[in-house]
């Protein structure tokens, strides 16, 4: 049937999660930080689907469905926050948003 070991998917998921985390800490552009968060969410979805397939349990698929719904809500609100930030500060660089500091 499926000759790919489960570890391959889990390792791929771990690598993608680390790339997403790296993007969040390195980049200062709010939109790219937002896209890195999407990469992290997707890597977790991948491990859910892999475990669901290897344990032959549909619960993982249902969980991925809900994660996608929450990610859609998160993206709508997150991009609205970015637009509001741009209206107020004329920037999307999180370095230049330091109202709480001063």
């Amino acid at each position, binding site marked *: *049937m*499926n000759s790919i070991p489960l570890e391959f998917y889990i*390792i791929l998921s771990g690598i993608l999660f680390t790339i997403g985390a790296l993007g969040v800490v390195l980049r200062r552009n709010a*939109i*790219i930080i937002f896209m890195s968060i999407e*990469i992290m969410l997707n890597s977790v979805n991948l491990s859910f689907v892999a475990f669901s*397939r290897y344990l032959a349990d*549909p619960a993982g698929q249902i969980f991925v469905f809900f994660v996608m719904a929450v990610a859609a809500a998160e993206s709508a*609100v997150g991009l609205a926050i970015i*637009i509001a930030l741009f209206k107020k500060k004329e920037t999307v660089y999180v370095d230049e948003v330091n109202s709480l500091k001063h």
Partner: protein
Amino acid sequence: MNIELITYLILGILAISSAIVTIANRHPIYSAMALIVHFFALAGIYLTLQSQFIAVLQILVYAGAIMVLVIFVLMLLNLSHEDKVKLRIQSRQSFGILLSAILMIIIASTISAANPTQPKVSDVSSMFSPQNLGQILYTNHLVAFELVGILLLTAIIGAIVMAKKKLVD
């Protein structure tokens, strides 16, 4: 080397490289394009896991809806002063790489410590069919499904209010 493993390897390398392009590119629009490639590669990987429903959903929701929203916002903001911004603190970059390396080590050690035994793999394509998943969703998880509907409605209202509002100092 069979065809499944080759497909997995090609899609996995495509997913990793497009994710790296996404976080490394200077221009957000190229990042968004690389992210679309990433989502398609992940949908292909879901197909190697016999999860056709999730693969279709991945393309519809992520590559379709979310990326259209991201590109629309990029168009709306029109970020022309891209190159003027420089990294304020150079040490933070190496600190971030260090943090990510620690995270990678933690994940790798957890995976190797878990040492998952290879479960008996069976054919699950009928179990993961949209019909079966829909039946499970509307019987066992009906309350959660309704709550997700309310969550999406709240998110729509919140997004409209936040994006429309005239911000005053």
